[in-house]
Protein backbone atom coordinates (compact mmCIF):
# COMPACT_ATOMS: atom_id res chain seq x y z
CA UNK A 1 0.00 0.00 0.00
CA UNK A 2 1.42 3.36 -0.96
CA UNK A 3 0.46 6.93 -0.21
CA UNK A 4 0.74 9.11 -3.29
CA UNK A 5 -0.33 12.51 -2.01
CA UNK A 6 -1.47 14.01 1.23
CA UNK A 7 -2.15 17.01 3.40
CA UNK A 8 -1.84 17.62 7.13
CA UNK A 9 -4.10 20.00 9.00
CA UNK A 10 -4.34 21.23 12.59
CA UNK A 11 -7.56 20.65 14.52
CA UNK A 12 -7.83 22.99 17.48
CA UNK A 13 -11.20 24.70 17.15
CA UNK A 14 -14.67 24.02 15.80
CA UNK A 15 -13.82 26.31 12.85
CA UNK A 16 -10.94 23.99 12.04
CA UNK A 17 -13.30 21.01 12.18
CA UNK A 18 -15.17 22.75 9.35
CA UNK A 19 -11.90 23.23 7.46
CA UNK A 20 -11.06 19.52 7.89
CA UNK A 21 -14.45 18.53 6.49
CA UNK A 22 -13.95 20.74 3.45
CA UNK A 23 -10.44 19.37 2.85
CA UNK A 24 -11.60 15.76 3.18
CA UNK A 25 -14.46 16.41 0.78
CA UNK A 26 -12.00 17.85 -1.73
CA UNK A 27 -9.79 14.75 -1.45
CA UNK A 28 -12.76 12.39 -1.66
CA UNK A 29 -13.93 14.11 -4.84
CA UNK A 30 -10.39 13.94 -6.25
CA UNK A 31 -10.22 10.21 -5.45
CA UNK A 32 -13.38 9.72 -7.50
CA UNK A 33 -15.63 8.64 -4.63
CA UNK A 34 -19.39 8.47 -5.22
CA UNK A 35 -21.62 11.05 -3.54
CA UNK A 36 -22.59 8.48 -0.94
CA UNK A 37 -19.00 7.56 -0.14
CA UNK A 38 -17.97 11.22 -0.09
CA UNK A 39 -20.70 11.87 2.44
CA UNK A 40 -19.66 8.90 4.56
CA UNK A 41 -15.97 9.85 4.65
CA UNK A 42 -16.69 13.50 5.36
CA UNK A 43 -19.11 12.61 8.15
CA UNK A 44 -16.62 10.20 9.76
CA UNK A 45 -13.91 12.87 9.48
CA UNK A 46 -16.23 15.36 11.15
CA UNK A 47 -16.80 13.00 14.09
CA UNK A 48 -13.14 12.16 14.57
CA UNK A 49 -12.05 15.78 14.18
CA UNK A 50 -14.60 16.91 16.75
CA UNK A 51 -13.50 14.19 19.17
CA UNK A 52 -9.96 15.53 18.78
CA UNK A 53 -11.12 19.01 19.79
CA UNK A 54 -13.67 18.08 22.45
CA UNK A 55 -12.00 15.13 24.17
CA UNK A 56 -8.30 15.82 23.57
CA UNK A 57 -8.06 19.60 23.33
CA UNK A 58 -6.75 19.51 19.77
CA UNK A 59 -4.48 17.55 17.45
CA UNK A 60 -3.87 16.97 13.77
CA UNK A 61 -5.19 15.02 10.82
CA UNK A 62 -3.22 13.61 7.93
CA UNK A 63 -5.30 13.06 4.80
CA UNK A 64 -3.70 10.70 2.29
CA UNK A 65 -4.69 9.31 -1.04
CA UNK A 66 -3.50 5.72 -1.08
CA UNK A 67 -3.36 2.88 -3.55
CA UNK A 68 -3.16 -0.84 -3.07
CA UNK A 69 -2.84 -2.66 -6.36
CA UNK A 70 -5.71 -1.37 -8.41
CA UNK A 71 -7.61 -0.03 -5.45
CA UNK A 72 -7.68 3.61 -4.56
CA UNK A 73 -8.59 4.94 -1.18
CA UNK A 74 -8.43 7.73 1.34
CA UNK A 75 -6.68 7.29 4.67
CA UNK A 76 -7.30 9.66 7.55
CA UNK A 77 -4.92 9.66 10.51
CA UNK A 78 -6.04 11.64 13.54
CA UNK A 79 -3.48 12.18 16.27
CA UNK A 80 -3.64 13.99 19.56
CA UNK A 81 -1.75 14.13 22.83
CA UNK A 82 -4.86 14.29 24.97
CA UNK A 83 -5.80 12.15 27.97
CA UNK A 84 -6.16 8.96 25.94
CA UNK A 85 -9.00 6.41 26.00
CA UNK A 86 -8.79 3.96 28.95
CA UNK A 87 -11.19 1.39 27.50
CA UNK A 88 -11.38 1.46 23.71
CA UNK A 89 -13.97 -1.31 23.51
CA UNK A 90 -16.26 0.64 25.82
CA UNK A 91 -15.67 3.90 23.91
CA UNK A 92 -16.77 2.06 20.75
CA UNK A 93 -20.13 1.07 22.27
CA UNK A 94 -23.11 2.87 20.76
CA UNK A 95 -24.32 5.48 23.18
CA UNK A 96 -21.24 5.53 25.40
CA UNK A 97 -20.12 9.07 26.15
CA UNK A 98 -18.13 10.74 28.87
CA UNK A 99 -19.40 14.11 27.71
CA UNK A 100 -22.90 15.08 26.70
CA UNK A 101 -22.87 13.81 23.14
CA UNK A 102 -24.92 11.00 21.68
CA UNK A 103 -21.97 8.64 22.09
CA UNK A 104 -22.20 7.63 18.44
CA UNK A 105 -19.23 9.42 16.89
CA UNK A 106 -16.60 6.74 17.32
CA UNK A 107 -18.77 3.69 16.65
CA UNK A 108 -20.60 5.50 13.85
CA UNK A 109 -17.44 6.55 12.04
CA UNK A 110 -16.13 3.00 12.33
CA UNK A 111 -19.24 1.83 10.48
CA UNK A 112 -18.86 4.56 7.86
CA UNK A 113 -15.27 3.57 7.00
CA UNK A 114 -13.77 0.28 5.74
CA UNK A 115 -10.81 0.05 8.10
CA UNK A 116 -10.60 1.57 11.52
CA UNK A 117 -7.76 1.25 14.03
CA UNK A 118 -7.58 3.06 17.36
CA UNK A 119 -4.44 3.10 19.47
CA UNK A 120 -4.45 5.05 22.68
CA UNK A 121 -2.29 5.39 25.75
CA UNK A 122 -3.76 6.96 28.85
CA UNK A 123 -1.94 10.18 29.61
CA UNK A 124 -0.24 10.26 26.21
CA UNK A 125 -2.82 10.51 23.51
CA UNK A 126 -4.87 8.82 20.86
CA UNK A 127 -4.36 7.87 17.24
CA UNK A 128 -7.18 6.84 14.93
CA UNK A 129 -6.41 5.56 11.44
CA UNK A 130 -9.51 5.28 9.29
CA UNK A 131 -9.49 4.17 5.66
CA UNK A 132 -12.16 4.18 2.99
CA UNK A 133 -11.65 2.27 -0.24
CA UNK A 134 -13.27 3.26 -3.48
Amino acid at each position, binding site marked *: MTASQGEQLPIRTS*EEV*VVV*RQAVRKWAVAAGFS*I*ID*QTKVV*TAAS*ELARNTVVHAGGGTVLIEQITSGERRGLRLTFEDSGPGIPDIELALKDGYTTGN*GLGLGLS*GSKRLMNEFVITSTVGHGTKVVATKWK
Partner: protein
Amino acid sequence: MPKPASSKLSEVLLRYESDILATWMQLQLSAVKHRGDLIKNSDLREQSARFLELVREGVQTGDPNVQSGAAWAATREMLESLSRSRAKLGFTPAETASFVYSLKAAIFERLREEMGSNPQALVTEIITASELLDVLGLLTMEMYQKGREGVIARQQQELMELSTPVVMLWDGVLALPLIGTLDSGRTQVVMENLLQRIVETGASIAILDITGVPTVDTLVAQHLLKAVSAARLMGADCIISGIRPQIAQTIVHLGVDLGNVTTKATLAEAFRVALNRTSRRIVDADFQASTTGA
Protein backbone atom coordinates in the same frame (compact mmCIF):
# COMPACT_ATOMS: atom_id res chain seq x y z
CA MET B 1 22.90 59.69 5.42
CA PRO B 2 23.74 56.29 4.00
CA LYS B 3 25.25 56.45 0.57
CA PRO B 4 22.78 55.33 -2.11
CA ALA B 5 23.51 51.72 -3.00
CA SER B 6 22.73 52.34 -6.62
CA SER B 7 23.04 55.93 -7.61
CA LYS B 8 22.20 55.37 -11.27
CA LEU B 9 18.99 53.43 -10.57
CA SER B 10 18.02 56.03 -8.00
CA GLU B 11 18.71 58.83 -10.47
CA VAL B 12 16.76 57.21 -13.28
CA LEU B 13 13.77 56.57 -11.02
CA LEU B 14 13.76 60.16 -9.87
CA ARG B 15 14.22 61.75 -13.29
CA TYR B 16 11.92 59.50 -15.31
CA GLU B 17 9.27 58.55 -12.79
CA SER B 18 6.34 59.64 -14.95
CA ASP B 19 7.76 58.03 -18.11
CA ILE B 20 8.35 54.77 -16.28
CA LEU B 21 4.84 54.91 -14.87
CA ALA B 22 3.38 55.43 -18.35
CA THR B 23 5.33 52.49 -19.80
CA TRP B 24 4.45 50.30 -16.83
CA MET B 25 0.74 51.10 -17.10
CA GLN B 26 0.82 50.22 -20.79
CA LEU B 27 2.54 46.94 -20.01
CA GLN B 28 0.04 46.07 -17.30
CA LEU B 29 -3.03 46.95 -19.36
CA SER B 30 -1.86 44.91 -22.34
CA ALA B 31 -0.64 41.93 -20.32
CA VAL B 32 -2.34 38.55 -20.61
CA LYS B 33 -2.63 38.52 -16.83
CA HIS B 34 -4.42 41.88 -16.74
CA ARG B 35 -7.78 41.56 -14.99
CA GLY B 36 -9.76 44.49 -16.28
CA ASP B 37 -12.83 42.64 -15.06
CA LEU B 38 -11.64 42.85 -11.46
CA ILE B 39 -9.97 46.23 -11.20
CA LYS B 40 -10.67 49.67 -12.62
CA ASN B 41 -7.93 51.32 -14.69
CA SER B 42 -8.03 54.38 -12.47
CA ASP B 43 -7.45 52.25 -9.35
CA LEU B 44 -4.62 50.41 -11.06
CA ARG B 45 -3.02 53.71 -12.07
CA GLU B 46 -3.28 55.05 -8.53
CA GLN B 47 -1.74 51.89 -7.04
CA SER B 48 1.02 51.89 -9.65
CA ALA B 49 1.92 55.54 -9.06
CA ARG B 50 2.02 55.00 -5.32
CA PHE B 51 4.14 51.85 -5.54
CA LEU B 52 6.64 53.43 -7.93
CA GLU B 53 6.96 56.43 -5.65
CA LEU B 54 7.65 54.15 -2.67
CA VAL B 55 10.23 52.14 -4.61
CA ARG B 56 11.95 55.35 -5.66
CA GLU B 57 12.04 56.56 -2.07
CA GLY B 58 13.33 53.21 -0.84
CA VAL B 59 16.08 53.07 -3.45
CA GLN B 60 17.10 56.63 -2.59
CA THR B 61 17.76 55.73 1.05
CA GLY B 62 20.20 53.10 -0.15
CA ASP B 63 18.87 50.56 2.35
CA PRO B 64 19.31 47.15 0.71
CA ASN B 65 17.20 45.33 3.33
CA VAL B 66 13.86 45.15 1.57
CA GLN B 67 12.60 42.26 3.73
CA SER B 68 12.70 44.09 7.06
CA GLY B 69 14.56 47.40 6.71
CA ALA B 70 12.81 50.50 8.05
CA ALA B 71 13.26 52.32 4.73
CA TRP B 72 11.02 49.76 3.07
CA ALA B 73 8.30 49.57 5.74
CA ALA B 74 5.85 51.76 3.80
CA THR B 75 6.42 49.70 0.63
CA ARG B 76 5.79 46.44 2.47
CA GLU B 77 2.66 47.89 4.02
CA MET B 78 1.35 48.99 0.66
CA LEU B 79 1.98 45.57 -0.87
CA GLU B 80 0.27 43.93 2.05
CA SER B 81 -2.95 45.88 1.60
CA LEU B 82 -2.73 45.47 -2.19
CA SER B 83 -2.35 41.70 -2.00
CA ARG B 84 -5.10 41.44 0.57
CA SER B 85 -7.51 43.44 -1.57
CA ARG B 86 -6.57 41.48 -4.69
CA ALA B 87 -7.06 38.18 -2.92
CA LYS B 88 -10.50 39.41 -1.97
CA LEU B 89 -11.25 40.59 -5.51
CA GLY B 90 -10.42 37.15 -6.88
CA PHE B 91 -6.96 37.67 -8.41
CA THR B 92 -4.75 34.57 -8.53
CA PRO B 93 -1.36 34.70 -6.76
CA ALA B 94 0.40 34.99 -10.13
CA GLU B 95 -1.86 37.82 -11.29
CA THR B 96 -1.24 39.61 -7.99
CA ALA B 97 2.53 39.26 -8.07
CA SER B 98 2.72 40.30 -11.72
CA PHE B 99 1.88 43.81 -10.51
CA VAL B 100 5.38 43.95 -9.04
CA TYR B 101 7.19 41.87 -11.65
CA SER B 102 5.83 43.85 -14.59
CA LEU B 103 7.54 46.97 -13.28
CA LYS B 104 10.87 45.35 -14.11
CA ALA B 105 10.44 45.70 -17.86
CA ALA B 106 9.48 49.38 -17.57
CA ILE B 107 12.52 50.17 -15.45
CA PHE B 108 14.88 48.10 -17.62
CA GLU B 109 13.75 49.89 -20.73
CA ARG B 110 14.55 53.24 -19.17
CA LEU B 111 17.91 52.05 -17.86
CA ARG B 112 18.79 50.76 -21.32
CA GLU B 113 18.02 54.11 -22.88
CA GLU B 114 20.11 55.88 -20.28
CA MET B 115 23.07 53.53 -20.14
CA GLY B 116 23.08 51.81 -23.52
CA SER B 117 26.62 53.01 -24.16
CA ASN B 118 27.95 51.27 -21.06
CA PRO B 119 26.73 47.65 -21.11
CA GLN B 120 28.84 46.65 -18.12
CA ALA B 121 27.24 49.26 -15.86
CA LEU B 122 23.83 48.61 -17.38
CA VAL B 123 23.97 44.93 -16.41
CA THR B 124 24.90 45.84 -12.84
CA GLU B 125 21.97 48.24 -12.55
CA ILE B 126 19.56 45.77 -14.10
CA ILE B 127 20.63 43.07 -11.65
CA THR B 128 20.16 45.44 -8.72
CA ALA B 129 16.69 46.48 -9.86
CA SER B 130 15.78 42.89 -10.64
CA GLU B 131 16.82 41.58 -7.22
CA LEU B 132 14.92 44.35 -5.51
CA LEU B 133 11.69 43.66 -7.39
CA ASP B 134 12.08 39.89 -7.02
CA VAL B 135 12.11 40.24 -3.25
CA LEU B 136 9.11 42.57 -3.33
CA GLY B 137 7.30 40.16 -5.66
CA LEU B 138 7.93 37.23 -3.34
CA LEU B 139 6.73 39.25 -0.37
CA THR B 140 3.56 40.00 -2.30
CA MET B 141 2.99 36.28 -2.92
CA GLU B 142 3.45 35.52 0.77
CA MET B 143 1.11 38.29 1.81
CA TYR B 144 -1.43 37.16 -0.77
CA GLN B 145 -1.37 33.68 0.76
CA LYS B 146 -2.04 35.14 4.20
CA GLY B 147 -4.80 37.36 2.83
CA ARG B 148 -6.35 34.34 1.15
CA GLU B 149 -6.41 32.37 4.39
CA GLY B 150 -8.11 35.33 6.01
CA VAL B 151 -10.73 35.37 3.26
CA ILE B 152 -11.46 31.67 3.69
CA ALA B 153 -11.77 32.00 7.46
CA ARG B 154 -14.07 35.01 7.04
CA GLN B 155 -16.27 33.27 4.49
CA GLN B 156 -16.71 30.36 6.84
CA GLN B 157 -17.53 32.69 9.66
CA GLU B 158 -20.12 34.38 7.47
CA LEU B 159 -21.57 31.07 6.45
CA MET B 160 -21.86 29.93 10.02
CA GLU B 161 -23.35 33.15 11.22
CA LEU B 162 -25.82 33.50 8.43
CA SER B 163 -28.98 34.57 10.12
CA THR B 164 -31.64 31.95 9.73
CA PRO B 165 -35.06 33.52 9.71
CA VAL B 166 -38.04 31.51 10.78
CA VAL B 167 -40.61 31.80 8.01
CA MET B 168 -44.33 31.43 8.32
CA LEU B 169 -45.26 29.23 5.35
CA TRP B 170 -48.91 28.99 6.12
CA ASP B 171 -51.19 29.69 9.00
CA GLY B 172 -49.87 27.42 11.72
CA VAL B 173 -46.90 26.17 9.72
CA LEU B 174 -43.40 27.52 10.37
CA ALA B 175 -40.25 26.68 8.46
CA LEU B 176 -36.65 27.04 9.54
CA PRO B 177 -34.38 26.81 6.49
CA LEU B 178 -30.98 26.02 7.98
CA ILE B 179 -28.06 27.07 5.82
CA GLY B 180 -24.41 26.49 6.59
CA THR B 181 -22.65 24.58 9.30
CA LEU B 182 -24.11 24.04 12.74
CA ASP B 183 -20.76 23.83 14.51
CA SER B 184 -20.81 27.25 16.10
CA GLY B 185 -22.59 28.54 19.17
CA ARG B 186 -24.89 30.39 16.80
CA THR B 187 -26.95 27.22 16.30
CA GLN B 188 -28.27 27.50 19.83
CA VAL B 189 -29.56 31.00 19.08
CA VAL B 190 -31.24 29.84 15.88
CA MET B 191 -33.02 27.03 17.69
CA GLU B 192 -34.15 29.33 20.48
CA ASN B 193 -35.50 31.68 17.84
CA LEU B 194 -37.60 28.88 16.45
CA LEU B 195 -39.11 28.08 19.85
CA GLN B 196 -39.83 31.74 20.40
CA ARG B 197 -41.70 31.97 17.10
CA ILE B 198 -43.67 28.80 17.86
CA VAL B 199 -44.89 30.43 21.05
CA GLU B 200 -45.66 33.76 19.35
CA THR B 201 -47.56 32.29 16.42
CA GLY B 202 -49.09 29.28 18.09
CA ALA B 203 -47.89 27.21 15.15
CA SER B 204 -48.67 23.53 15.30
CA ILE B 205 -46.06 22.38 12.77
CA ALA B 206 -42.44 23.40 12.32
CA ILE B 207 -40.40 22.28 9.34
CA LEU B 208 -36.66 22.07 9.96
CA ASP B 209 -35.13 22.17 6.51
CA ILE B 210 -31.53 20.96 6.34
CA THR B 211 -31.12 21.19 2.55
CA GLY B 212 -28.46 23.84 3.12
CA VAL B 213 -26.51 21.86 5.71
CA PRO B 214 -23.63 20.09 3.95
CA THR B 215 -22.82 17.50 6.61
CA VAL B 216 -25.18 15.85 9.05
CA ASP B 217 -23.17 14.28 11.83
CA THR B 218 -23.95 13.49 15.47
CA LEU B 219 -23.68 17.15 16.46
CA VAL B 220 -26.21 18.25 13.86
CA ALA B 221 -28.43 15.30 14.78
CA GLN B 222 -28.26 16.28 18.41
CA HIS B 223 -29.27 19.87 17.62
CA LEU B 224 -32.19 18.62 15.55
CA LEU B 225 -33.36 16.13 18.17
CA LYS B 226 -33.21 18.78 20.88
CA ALA B 227 -35.18 21.22 18.75
CA VAL B 228 -37.77 18.55 17.98
CA SER B 229 -38.38 17.68 21.60
CA ALA B 230 -38.41 21.30 22.75
CA ALA B 231 -40.88 22.19 19.99
CA ARG B 232 -43.05 19.30 21.05
CA LEU B 233 -43.18 20.72 24.57
CA MET B 234 -44.39 23.98 23.04
CA GLY B 235 -47.15 22.09 21.25
CA ALA B 236 -45.63 21.91 17.77
CA ASP B 237 -44.75 18.84 15.73
CA CYS B 238 -41.57 18.93 13.67
CA ILE B 239 -40.91 17.65 10.19
CA ILE B 240 -37.31 17.43 9.07
CA SER B 241 -36.81 18.07 5.36
CA GLY B 242 -33.79 18.11 3.11
CA ILE B 243 -32.75 14.55 3.94
CA ARG B 244 -31.04 13.59 0.69
CA PRO B 245 -30.48 9.86 0.02
CA GLN B 246 -26.77 10.06 0.94
CA ILE B 247 -27.65 11.83 4.19
CA ALA B 248 -30.28 9.22 5.02
CA GLN B 249 -27.76 6.41 4.52
CA THR B 250 -25.11 8.14 6.56
CA ILE B 251 -27.47 8.81 9.45
CA VAL B 252 -28.37 5.12 9.54
CA HIS B 253 -24.69 4.09 9.62
CA LEU B 254 -23.97 6.59 12.35
CA GLY B 255 -26.68 4.91 14.37
CA VAL B 256 -28.67 8.09 14.88
CA ASP B 257 -32.32 7.40 15.61
CA LEU B 258 -34.54 10.28 14.56
CA GLY B 259 -37.31 8.51 16.44
CA ASN B 260 -40.81 9.20 15.30
CA VAL B 261 -39.95 12.43 13.52
CA THR B 262 -41.34 12.64 10.01
CA THR B 263 -38.55 13.18 7.50
CA LYS B 264 -38.85 14.24 3.87
CA ALA B 265 -36.38 14.73 1.04
CA THR B 266 -37.56 18.22 0.14
CA LEU B 267 -39.13 21.22 1.80
CA ALA B 268 -41.99 21.04 -0.72
CA GLU B 269 -42.88 17.50 0.34
CA ALA B 270 -42.70 18.48 4.00
CA PHE B 271 -44.97 21.42 3.29
CA ARG B 272 -47.50 19.12 1.61
CA VAL B 273 -47.52 16.88 4.67
CA ALA B 274 -47.93 19.93 6.90
CA LEU B 275 -50.86 21.21 4.86
CA ASN B 276 -52.53 17.83 4.97
CA ARG B 277 -52.17 17.67 8.68
CA THR B 278 -53.34 21.20 9.40
CA SER B 279 -56.23 21.21 6.97
CA ARG B 280 -57.51 18.07 8.62
CA ARG B 281 -57.96 20.15 11.67
CA ILE B 282 -59.16 23.37 10.13
CA VAL B 283 -61.18 21.81 7.37
CA ASP B 284 -64.18 24.15 7.86
CA ALA B 285 -62.23 27.35 7.57
CA ASP B 286 -60.42 26.02 4.50
CA PHE B 287 -63.66 25.02 2.87
CA GLN B 288 -65.11 28.47 3.45
CA ALA B 289 -62.00 30.15 2.15
CA SER B 290 -62.07 28.16 -1.08
CA THR B 291 -65.81 28.70 -1.68
CA THR B 292 -65.46 32.44 -1.29
CA GLY B 293 -62.77 32.33 -3.94
CA ALA B 294 -59.84 33.38 -1.73
